[in-house]
């Protein structure tokens, strides 16, 4: 109980720093998710069209996937230095694999008969992509986004290691100063944010899969 009380006291006396940290955390997470989508989805569509390219990109992505988030953050540091930008890039690298892989699988799993009848009815490649493939792949794409967002929010904590700011700052300071109340001020909101994003994307997913349960 003392820990929580201590955390609340610390929070009360550092409202501005906390606000800034939350904002930086959200900015880092949101921006990297957005850029991850802008990179991941077009590449996934490209992969779904070209078998050779998909082999190359998918094996590359799967390699990236096994590298721990902290390692990626540390790897970008010598290359890009410290601060917000390298943290952002590291998080984009983390966000891409689940989005790319899920979108790719989602588009690939559209039934051949559906594609054949769409073509046979005279839909253009673009119409088939926008009206058939993406909507049918959407549940999988959304679950990829959900995975990516949870991963980003928790990994954004580590951005503090390379001076990227965010809620991780409290955790790192708390750890080094043996101040567990301070640590909680960082850790609890991160956990809360991760849960909230999980819930948010989960419910968006349910809206778009209504036709499967009707």
């Amino acid at each position, binding site marked *: 109980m003392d820990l929580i009380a201590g955390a609340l006291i610390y929070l009360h006396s550092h409202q501005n720093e906390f606000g800034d940290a939350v904002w930086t955390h959200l900015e880092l997470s949101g921006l990297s998710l957005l850029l991850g989508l802008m990179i991941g989805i077009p590449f996934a569509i490209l992969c779904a069209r070209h078998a050779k390219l998909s082999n190359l990109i998918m094996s590359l992505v799967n390699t990236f996937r096994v590298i721990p988030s902290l390692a990626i953050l540390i790897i970008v540091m010598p290359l890009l230095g410290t601060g917000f930008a390298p943290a952002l890039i590291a998080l984009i690298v983390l966000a891409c694999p689940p989005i790319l892989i899920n979108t790719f699988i989602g588009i690939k799993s559209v039934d051949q*008969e559906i594609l054949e*009848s*769409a073509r046979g009815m*005279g839909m253009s490649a673009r119409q088939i992509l926008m009206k058939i493939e993406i909507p049918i792949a959407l549940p999988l794409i959304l679950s990829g986004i959900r995975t990516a967002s949870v991963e980003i929010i928790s990994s954004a904590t580590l951005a503090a290691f390379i001076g990227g700011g965010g809620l991780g700052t409290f955790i790192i300071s708390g750890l080094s100063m043996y101040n567990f109340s301070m640590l909680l001020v960082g850790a609890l909101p991160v956990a809360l944010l991760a849960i909230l994003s999980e819930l948010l994307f989960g419910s968006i997913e349910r809206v778009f899969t209504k036709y499967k349960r*009707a």
Partner: protein
Amino acid sequence: MKSNNDAIKLEGISKSFGTANQPSVKKTNLKIESGSFVTILGASGCGKTTLLKMVNRLYEPSTGKIYINGEDVTTISPTALRRKIGYVIQQTGLFQHMTIEQNVATVPKILGWEKKKIDERIDALLRLVGLSPTDYRKRYPRQLSGGQQQRVGIARAMAADPSIMLMDEPFGAIDAINRNELQDEFLRIQKKLHKTILFVTHDIIEALKLGDKVIIMNAGEIQQFDTPLNILKKPANDFVRNLVHADDLLQRMIFVKARDVMNHNVDSIPVNADAVSINELASIKEVLLKLLESSFDYVKITNEKNELVGQVTLHEIRQV
């Protein structure tokens, strides 16, 4: 000479796929008259689906030219061409994430129809295929049975009122009872709409029952293209003879329709209200059964409007 009556014309069409050493479809010439219902019968791998898919350019022929209503199909973009041709496949290919009304509205929407016109069209089409618009418009494909899904598939293909329909084993995945019902209803629809239909099937009964004319294919070649009656009476070769069991009289009686053999001379029919009558599309087998049950020596043949169009006696049945 170019005949405007040919809805579909194939000139020296053949198709070979990449590594295969035999062409899938060998050099073929074919003319499909406008408004006729033509079935293509053959075993799997005989080239019947390949032939069909060249008409709407899902496959491009290796040689030859295809004309739709006198127009060379290669002069029209594939998408524009396909929007003018109805296309139905066995697995229905309904868009599972869209409601029935959205499915049916696909082509009209692409063509930019007004919303009101699309709405009316959906209602009319669903009624045409025997589905109540109020019950089915807002449902999703997976909430429907296989037979109902294919009804929607047919409605969707007819949405922009194409004059030509290509159908690739549309009833192939449907159980026998529902298939029969769908075939009968589809014949009824066709009698009303007079579309030019090219209908692929591997079911002999279906091919002979539905087609005004039947194309029999084997090993990439058309073996015979004729009316069901002529295919049964004068099979072009042993392949056709064996396929349709042409020597089996009872088999023949199932496929020959009253219309095909009846005496058209309406004036010579004795006027007798008690004499039994049957629709012109009934099989000779059904006519014979009526005749055996009846105390008259003839059966009156009527059309859809219940008008007298001919008669059948034992004399006509013997000609089968």
